[in-house]
């Protein structure tokens, strides 16, 4: 964990750095356990589901709509634009199998949630 902390500290301004600070746990709690946020070219959907903090792409694979516009309902996200449905469990697409949302690796250190844009 110390290595990770050092790595983030050292490469804070480096655009090639794969880990970025995404949010804090209290941010997540304050926002109904669901946050969407652009970091560089990535629109990220961060949420807590069944006790686990997860992050998937917020870009619907249909036409690019916002998957996390609404709060997750009964374990699924429904894209605002055309109602494509995705599982909160793993981002799999329930409307068209084979078009899952990309999942991101997270590191949680104390209050902070870091995301690996390449992982």
């Amino acid at each position, binding site marked *: 964990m110390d290595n990770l902390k050092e790595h983030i500290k050292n490469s804070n301004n480096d655009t*090639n750095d794969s880990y970025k600070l995404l949010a804090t746990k209290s941010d997540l709690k304050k*926002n*109904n356990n*669901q*946050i*969407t*946020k*652009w970091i*560089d*070219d*990535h*629109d*990220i959907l961060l949420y807590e589901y069944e006790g686990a903090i997860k992050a998937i*792409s*917020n*870009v619907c*694979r*249909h*036409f*690019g*709509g*916002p998957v*996390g*516009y*609404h*709060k997750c*309902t009964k374990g699924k996200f*429904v*894209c*605002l*634009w*055309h*109602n494509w449905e995705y599982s909160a469990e793993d981002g799999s697409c329930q409307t*068209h199998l084979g*078009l899952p949302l*990309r999942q991101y690796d997270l590191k949680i250190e104390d209050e902070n949630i870091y995301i690996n844009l*390449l*992982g």
Partner: protein
Amino acid sequence: MSEEPTLLLKCVGEMDCPKEVVMWNYYDHEHLIGTHYKLYKKARILAENGSWALVYRNLRMPLLPFYCSGIAVQLMEGNVMKTFHKDSIGFLLEMEAHFEDLPNEKCRVTVTYRINTHPIFKIFQPLFQMLFKSWFEATWEEDAPMRLRRWKVHKLGFKDFSGIDYINKKLPRPENLTYKNYEFTPPVKSFSSINKNEGVERFYKGGDVVELGYSN
């Protein structure tokens, strides 16, 4: 009957994206029950061929407390989209949207709403203008972030029914990432039941729905 339309309203708006993005948005029948789920309950394409479609819609105008159904023919003619909407009362509403490019990848949309009927109905002009101005504003407000986002993901290389390739493959952003002009050729491709007997209905119906909005 008078040469001039009995009821008339012209609305103008500008967007920070090319006109083709807005044309895509206007011609996309399926987003009515998604993006505009507070206004539309159901949509169905009864017939479609290239740049025209015959569409059934169940909707509620802002300021009015009830839903009504109607059939509309919608067609694209170059940079103009025409809609002829027959409502359940019997009026024929004609809507014409003109799309024009502005410098710096911006565009202007001019929409005219018109009903030609007996001149006696001219007394309803203030009400007509109030209703359709609020309709234009309500739909514009919901469509604007959709257009801007569509343009943004296009510039990142988004492909329909696929996504952003380098992001999906967990690769770094390609050096010298460039984008092509946005092209729109109707119809909007769909694999949903919008063109089947059942049509499509909105998923969210209000009530305890929690909107978190677009990403910052």
